[in-house]
């Protein structure tokens, strides 16, 4: 069942930026990521769902009901921002209780739900702290808890982990994914981090300059990018200029390197770089520099300047305009 439907939605700013004719459906319990560089319109879409921006055209429906005429407080959504989520003058408990009080939930029930939620986000015992006394990661946990307590039909996350350290970011991702699948929550997640989008999502929507460039499962997006833009934005990609304005796109892990010649493309080893659990080799060819990921043993048998030949596994072809 589709929980969220965005139909021909347009939102344009005075500057002319914005999004135009957006169509997007999110099923119940699905986590969909809006992915793109800053200014691509992903946050605009999220804010129109949350009610912080009015739409100029089209419709947004949640569980079949149009919500575009409702103010944020009447919408069945809740949002977690990148920063400044928690009210600094309230303790954690009061931050969590705020929305429940407005919903006229009895005191005992409020306390019960809050302690349950605190356990879920692994923050039990922090109820009496002020936001300023907690780390960024802890604050975002509370922000997510606060949003979940409102039992939204669609949870909106606007780059919630962008301000956190890499390690904590990864941990938060995993926990969010677990909570989301356990509780079967419908989520729209905005990020500019393609790795995050890949790791978290059921479906990824890649955006470019106010348009949806491609949507599909992480595997789809990664292995079958429909445009050069998507191929370039997601993961690492070699682009080789071919005759007739054609561009060949090959991921470094799909480039096989062997000594001699006779493969898809010949060249000379340019650099060999150790990058942890794999080794990155760049090869000088007539069509430009090609990057390949190779194993440790393989790297031992090559030296700079060696003549090598490349064979391409999975590849994509694009025509440049």
């Amino acid at each position: 069942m589709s929980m969220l439907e965005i139909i021909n939605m347009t939102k344009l700013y005075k500057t002319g930026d914005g999004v135009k004719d957006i169509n997007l459906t999110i099923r119940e319990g699905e986590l969909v990521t809006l992915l793109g560089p800053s200014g691509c319109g992903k946050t605009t879409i999220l804010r129109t769902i949350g009610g912080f921006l009015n739409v100029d055209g089209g419709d947004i429906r949640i569980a079949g009901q149009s919500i575009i005429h409702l103010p944020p407080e009447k919408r069945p959504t809740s949002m977690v921002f990148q920063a400044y989520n928690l009210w600094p003058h309230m303790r954690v408990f009061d931050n969590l209780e705020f929305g429940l009080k407005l919903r006229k939930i009895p005191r005992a029930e409020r306390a019960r739900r809050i302690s349950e939620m605190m356990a879920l986000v692994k923050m039990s015992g922090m109820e009496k702290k002020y936001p300023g006394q907690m780390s960024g990661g802890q604050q975002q946990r509370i922000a997510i808890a606060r949003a979940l307590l409102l039992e939204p039909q669609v949870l909106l996350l606007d780059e919630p982990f962008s301000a956190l350290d890499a390690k904590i970011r990864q941990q938060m991702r995993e926990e969010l994914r677990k909570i989301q699948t356990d509780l079967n929550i419908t989520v729209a997640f905005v990020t500019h981090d393609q790795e995050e989008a890949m790791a978290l999502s059921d479906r990824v929507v890649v955006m470019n300059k106010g348009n949806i460039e491609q949507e599909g499962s992480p595997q789809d997006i990664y292995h079958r990018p429909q445009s050069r833009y998507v191929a370039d934005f997601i993961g690492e990609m070699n682009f080789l200029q071919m005759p007739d304005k054609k561009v060949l796109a090959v991921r470094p892990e799909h480039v096989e390197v062997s000594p001699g010649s006779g493969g898809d493309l010949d060249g000379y080893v340019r650099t060999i770089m150790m990058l942890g659990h794999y080794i990155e080799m760049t090869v000088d060819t007539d069509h430009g520099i090609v990057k390949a990921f190779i194993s440790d043993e393989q790297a031992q048998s090559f030296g700079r300047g060696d003549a090598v030949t490349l064979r391409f596994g999975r590849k994509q072809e694009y025509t440049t305009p």
Partner: protein
Amino acid sequence: MSQTVVRPPQIRRALGKKRAGGLAILFAFMLFFYGPLLYMFILAFANSYNFPAIMPNEFGFMWWDYVFKQPNTLVSITNSFLFAVCSTALSFVICIPAAYALARFQFTGRKLVMFLFLLGNAFPKIGMYTSMGIIFYKVGLMGTFMGVLLIHMLGTMMQMIWLPAGAFRSVPRHLEEAARDAGAGPLRTFFKVTLPVAWPGIAVALLYAFIGSLGESVGTLFVGLPQWRTMMTEMYGVILDFPATAGAVFALLLIIPNFVLLLLMRKYIGAETMAKGFKMS
């Protein structure tokens, strides 16, 4: 070679000199700022103080007794606080919504409005009071409570616009949006989130408005006398007609409320709050 080597004793001597110089400057400043205050304290508790004695000949509360026995003293103290409370409260009610609008909404003429609030303080006050006086005569506000109140609000309104607008501007929008998201309407969001978060800046503005009103003298003399006397206007009379000791007692009386207020609000007063208040963006 020996010339380039700086020996520790030399460093110490150089630092010592610097520190001594610094202390001297600090002392000079302290004397400059607090010397008159100290002298006033001594004066206020001097029963008799005759030239050429450096310290008073006799300490005591004689002049306090004298000041409080004046028929106008208590009335003027009551009036001072009455005007301070009323002008601060009224400008709070008028200016806080305006400050919020100036901080949050983009409209044409926004910066002009901010600037106009300063303009009232850009002219020599006496000139403005004269022209206000002419208008007040025509509309019958001379010597009335409302007239004096308006004069006081001239000052308090500026305090209650600039600092609170800065305070509102520094409240992250996400905090308000999160409140809307949680189910609070615009009004509840303002009172439960925006106002409390902006409170330190607003508290400072209230303090300055209050102290400013207590200290208002020229306009009150113009518009209020003889019907409305405040401590400040009484002070003029006391200074002119009686020995300096009586003036000192009065000055101390004026300092007490300011001092108490500053003490109460000291956690809110900081360079940061002030800096936020006087940004015009």
